[in-house]
């Protein structure tokens, strides 16, 4: 055995080196995949947190409109229009086309809500217009809540 090693130490060292190289490659690949998965999980958690923030603003708009506080609702609508634009730009490669369509629609709906709220007090609106405003606000809230749920689900799937 020692004779064999003495005669072939170079070959043995080469084979051992090759084995270690393969093992190092496998482990580094695994580590790289794990790091990528961890990064995705963090990103998706961040998406769901931002979607939760948007959902919160939409909920406040619904509340303010139902209380007849158009001024407060308008402030929140301004913030949320910006937020939907940000979400679309920031998460362009993480959102599905369906999600993008929903967030785009919510943004446009908010611009219409802004138009209505800018014209005057909620209490001065005709009954039909008030109902349309209220339904539009609820629709934005429902859309963003749905998107929040979807983002949470995706981030949970990424973690498990």
């Amino acid at each position, binding site marked *: 055995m020692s004779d064999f090693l003495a005669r072939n130490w170079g070959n043995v060292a080469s084979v051992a080196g090759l084995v270690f190289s393969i093992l190092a490659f496998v482990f580094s690949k695994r580590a790289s995949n794990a790091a990528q998965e961890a990064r995705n999980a963090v990103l998706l958690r961040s998406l769901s947190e931002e979607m939760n923030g948007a959902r919160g603003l939409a909920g406040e708009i619904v509340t303010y409109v139902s209380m007849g506080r158009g001024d407060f609702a308008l402030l929140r609508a301004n913030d949320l229009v910006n937020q939907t*634009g940000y979400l679309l730009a920031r998460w362009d490669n993480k959102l599905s086309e369906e999600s993008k369509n929903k967030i*785009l629609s919510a943004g446009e*709906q908010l611009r219409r809500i802004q138009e*209505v709220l800018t014209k005057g007090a909620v209490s001065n609106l005709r009954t039909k217009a008030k109902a349309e405003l209220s339904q*539009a606000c609820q*629709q934005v809230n429902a859309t963003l809540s749905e998107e929040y749920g979807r983002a949470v689900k995706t981030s949970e799937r990424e973690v498990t």
Partner: protein
Amino acid sequence: MEDTKAIEFFRGVLSKTRAGRIGWQPTATESAYIAAIGGKFILSVWQYEYPDQETFPFARYSLAVKDQDGRVLTTITSSDAGIAEGEMRELYELVSRQAFRVNEKIDQVLGELSKL
């Protein structure tokens, strides 16, 4: 002068709406409907009263497309060359029915009626 691209766009929206392929929804603004497509564009259709008629104002219709940043890319009205007033009205009426899911609700009513 006819804007051929705008006419093509209008015909495309009308044809996809006839086929029920666009998810129209009502808005906070009376007589206005929107739909997002491709994750990039917002279509809107609305009705307005033509103000030049002093005694009998009549309804006119518009179709517009905006990009993701809310910039209006083009607006088509029923008075544009190459756009038939009847087709624009048809688009508006189809959009309105689809946004409120009128056909589905009528089917439900018919279902209820058949049980009586």
